[in-house]
């Protein structure tokens, strides 16, 4: 067995949490049940990985088989990578029957003819997703197994989820191969990125819960008994303002849990309009800013801003449109014309 293959298997095993190594190796299916029984999973991970490599040696594993183990790991831990959503377009009305064998053949041929050295693996999952792992080489260099690209493609949709290789120059070729293999005309990045692949799917496939039309007001339950010396009208006013914020928030964000995104970015090139109270000259040129929001769960934290008194209700459409527009990277310019308070995002 090639030394680089042995090292790759060893490092892949080291990435897996110890109590999941056995089940991942079973899913892999490369080692027999008898071989797996000889493994001692109670020793250090380093020793386990050495033993696994030894067994793979006995079965003379090659890189294609080692790559499958990597796909299994990435399928279970997709959040270790950052994913970007792409959408493909057709020119005409023609609806092609999707043929997986044909897709694989075309995809491989496109990359191999360009690079010669490239490792390509496919693996299909029950949710109709095809996972593709690509390790990139050049006509003169062996593929680098540590700088892979991952593609998750749902053939019944025009969406592709790509976790690009750090070798950025490979991206155009990868996109080309996808378009050719799936009989589309072109592909574009949707400017929607996250570590959470499932949330990206929820947003792209519009699977997240929205309760825009189906909202029934419910009285808020306030158990606090107001102190007697406070004006009841003020209490009433506070309560109705709270209720309004809750209602508006629910209309905008819905009732259900939000899809998980970690960031949103806005490049602003809008006019700086000073508040008349501030006695500052208007600046005639666009005011250039870059605003980044980051949070372990961005949409949930945005949702909690207005109830916490940190933002107006409703929150700006620039923020609340993220799931509907299926993007979290924006470039904002001033809209020319009638509405001074409105912006466009091209």
């Amino acid at each position, binding site marked *: 067995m090639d030394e680089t293959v042995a090292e790759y298997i060893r490092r892949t095993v080291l990435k897996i949490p110890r109590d999941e190594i056995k089940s991942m190796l079973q899913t892999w299916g490369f080692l027999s049940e008898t071989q797996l029984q000889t493994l001692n999973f109670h020793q250090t991970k380093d020793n386990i990985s050495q033993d696994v490599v030894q067994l793979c040696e006995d079965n003379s594993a090659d890189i294609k088989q080692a790559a499958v183990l990597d796909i299994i790991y990435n399928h279970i831990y997709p959040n270790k990578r950052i994913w970007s959503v792409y959408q493909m377009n057709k020119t005409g009305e023609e609806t092609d029957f999707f043929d997986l064998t044909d897709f694989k053949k075309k995809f491989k041929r496109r990359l191999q003819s360009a690079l010669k050295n490239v490792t390509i693996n496919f693996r299909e999952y029950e949710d109709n997703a095809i996972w593709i792992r690509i390790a990139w080489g050049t006509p003169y260099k062996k593929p680098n197994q540590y700088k892979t690209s991952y593609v998750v493609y749902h053939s019944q949709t025009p969406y592709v989820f790509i976790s690009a290789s750090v070798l950025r120059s490979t991206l155009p070729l990868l996109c080309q191969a996808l378009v050719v293999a799936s009989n589309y005309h072109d592909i574009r990045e949707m400017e929607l990125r996250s570590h959470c692949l499932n949330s990206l799917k929820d947003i792209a496939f519009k699977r997240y819960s929205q309760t825009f039309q189906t909202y029934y007001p419910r009285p808020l339950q306030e158990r606090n008994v107001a102190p007697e010396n406070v004006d009841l009208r003020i209490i009433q006013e506070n309560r109705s303002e709270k209720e309004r914020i809750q209602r508006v928030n629910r209309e905008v964000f819905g009732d259900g849990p939000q899809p998980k995104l970690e960031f949103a970015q806005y490049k602003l090139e809008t006019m700086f309009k000073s508040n008349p109270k501030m006695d500052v000259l208007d600046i005639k040129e666009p005011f250039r800013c870059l605003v980044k929001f*980051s*949070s372990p769960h961005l949409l949930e*934290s*945005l949702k909690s801003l207005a109830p916490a008194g940190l933002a107006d209700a409703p*929150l*700006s459409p620039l923020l609340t449109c993220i799931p509907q527009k299926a993007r979290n990277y924006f470039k904002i310019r001033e809209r020319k014309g009638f509405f001074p308070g409105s912006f466009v995002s091209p």
Partner: protein
Amino acid sequence: MESEARTLPSAGRLSGAARLSRGPLFGRAHGRFGPGSGGPLPPCSQENADPQKTAFLLRKQWALYSVTPLYKFSSGKLREYARLLGAFIAAERHKGLAVQVGVDLDIQVTFSSLPDLKGSEQDHAAMLVQLSSRSSVSPKNSEEKLMWSGWFCCVSGDDLSENVPEDFTCLPLFLANGAESYVAIVGSWFQKTFDCRFRRLAISPLNLTWMAAMWTGCKVEKNASATELVFSVPCLPQPLDISYAIHPEDAKALWDTVQKTPGEITQEEVDLFMDCLYSHFHRHFKIHLSATKLVKVSTAIASAHCDGIIKFLQSKYLIGVLMLLTELAISQIQ
């Protein structure tokens, strides 16, 4: 060493700090060095600080501390201090209390003076302490590796130095780069030897707004980095950070329309600058940044974090930034 947020200085004190820093920051003399003070111009203008000699201070993260005046410190004894501190570290290691370093490592201590880092005649020369390691197995052919550095300085700290008894040396600002465990051990030796006290120097959000305004107003070359303000939003079920970066030219243009008082910066101007940025942000996102916490400011001049961490980025403005930090350290001591 305790870490404690300092209380907000009064507006009057702050505007004093700004006058102080503005002079050297803008290459002009103001405030106490201005007309009427009678003294000569401070030897702190950028021409005096040799950029070569202070280049190693740039682009590193320095943790800030305030230090009370050192008792019976003598700059003629730096060699002896190095030897004593070296022995102290060795003894601590022997006790097993000290930092974990490889058993085979010798720690080399050096003390040196940084005479360029001064603001006024009365300022004591800055002092650098460096710890480097050398393998004790083969000390001859192994290279020395710098593990930790820390420096004491006082830039225009006349407020303090004028008011301490003889026998005391004022170096109120201490900056450290490297493992915090070394700060503890070096700090305890200084504490023991010179009867001084170290305290973490946090930077309040109010002082951060001053830094944002002052540094934005400084002239820098083209392609300078943006004025970036980082806010953290407290008390949400999920934490949220907001980075608001403004193109340096546009930020300076805004500051120039806000800044009207000739020769000094006022609290009102700084507040107005921030309010303008907040209202521009609110117009787009409907979020009230004024209700969040400003945690970090970075500009082409320097970057500062509220936890008391600073990074100097331009040797030209090093003295000016140190002057402001000295002011903050002194107000923490007093």
